[in-house]
């Protein structure tokens, strides 16, 4: 992209009018389908034993759930801004926004570790009951997605201003990374509502 076209609206990639890489979107949709199955399994289990689920739900610390939601929403807002800057070919600003995404997102890992630690310290673990099985596994799988997201962010921060990387490639991968980061964000919001907020009985 030349200086003249730097502020022009971005062109669709590969003939598709979707941000980022179409293959990454396939991955995201497949992953969200897997989480949809997780949610259905959870709801089916909850319908069988509403009292166990409700008692267990009240044992979760809402403050951690809320803090994690705010952390990821803030981080997601910076990522959205990074993608907008990349679309305007403002690579330095895009890089700074991604650093802000990383810095504001990292506390999610700390908060999650503290929450799990508190649960384990109280003798609540993976096999305590069905609710906590789902709680640890779903939040654990989500955490794995978060870690992958952090690695992706580090790669994108390294790539954002690299002269050797073509600008359309930079934009495609920043948008793809952004879409992935928003998926992490979105999945957490659903997990938060399902595990912490929804009354079962």
């Amino acid at each position: 992209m030349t200086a003249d076209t730097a502020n022009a609206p971005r062109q669709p990639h590969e003939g598709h009018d979707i941000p980022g890489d179409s293959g990454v979107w396939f991955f995201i949709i497949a992953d969200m389908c897997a989480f949809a199955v997780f949610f259905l399994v959870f709801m089916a289990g909850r319908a069988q034993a509403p009292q166990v689920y409700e008692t267990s739900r009240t044992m979760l610390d809402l403050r951690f759930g809320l803090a994690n939601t705010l952390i990821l929403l803030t981080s997601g807002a910076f990522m959205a801004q990074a993608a907008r800057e990349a679309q305007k070919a403002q690579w330095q600003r895009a890089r700074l926004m991604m650093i802000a995404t990383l810095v504001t997102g990292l506390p999610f890992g700390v908060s999650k570790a503290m929450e799990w630690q508190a649960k384990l310290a109280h003798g609540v673990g993976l096999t305590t009951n069905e609710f906590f099985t789902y709680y640890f596994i779903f939040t654990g799988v989500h955490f794995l997605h978060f870690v992958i997201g952090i690695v992706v962010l580090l790669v994108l921060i390294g790539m954002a201003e690299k002269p050797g990387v073509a600008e359309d490639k930079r934009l495609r991968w920043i948008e793809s990374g952004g879409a992935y980061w928003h998926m992490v964000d979105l999945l957490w919001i659903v997990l938060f509502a399902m595990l912490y907020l929804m009354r079962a009985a």
Partner: protein
Amino acid sequence: MMTVTQETTIPDTRYWRFCAWMGPLFVAVFYVCWGLLGHNFPPFPPETPAAEVAGWFRENANGVRLGMVIAMTFAPAYGVWGYALAKVLERSMGVGSDNLIVQLARLGAAWTTITILVPTSFWLTAAFRPETLPDWMIEMLYDMAWLLIDLAYAVTSVQLFALGIGFLADKRSKPLIPKWLAWYGIWVGFMFVLECVMPYFRNGAFARSGILNFWIEFIIWMAWVPVLTIYAIKATGRIERGE
């Protein structure tokens, strides 16, 4: 540093299609022989009493023997398929056969063959002389085989990730293997991580017979093989035309 770019010569593709068809053949044979004859599709849930599992093995010993012998005979078909895909991968990436990603794709397929052969021999052992084995021992062999075949997931993930990453490196405007399929393989590799919690559960979605750790995990892998084969065979035609 020397980098190999897009190959321009037409390779000898004589056996590529034959070897590629070994993948769907493996899936079909494995489903019938290991899955249906061996009572593994779906498996006995872990909470099934040992006497029930042992009783079934005693009654159906000949069927299990036949199933496992054929499953073991056809296990290398998975490796043969993996090698055929690695040839397509070389052309897709425009690299030689000594490329690290190509080698990992081959290695993952070859290792997967071993992780199919070994547990299959445990099920066969349970059916070899079930009349003299105590119930708990047959149950143990059945459990041991399932723990190995499920927890060896990472070996197959090596193949899934290598093929996925390699196919994504295709510089063609229309890649030999579509991007969505490359990403699908990577996603399957990640999904396999759920098997890590399988040893903790004797019932429910994460048990070896559960909706997530059996039905979804096995079906997404078994579907990947024939779909990728069809695209690999199409890609072979394109490679022969010098695309």
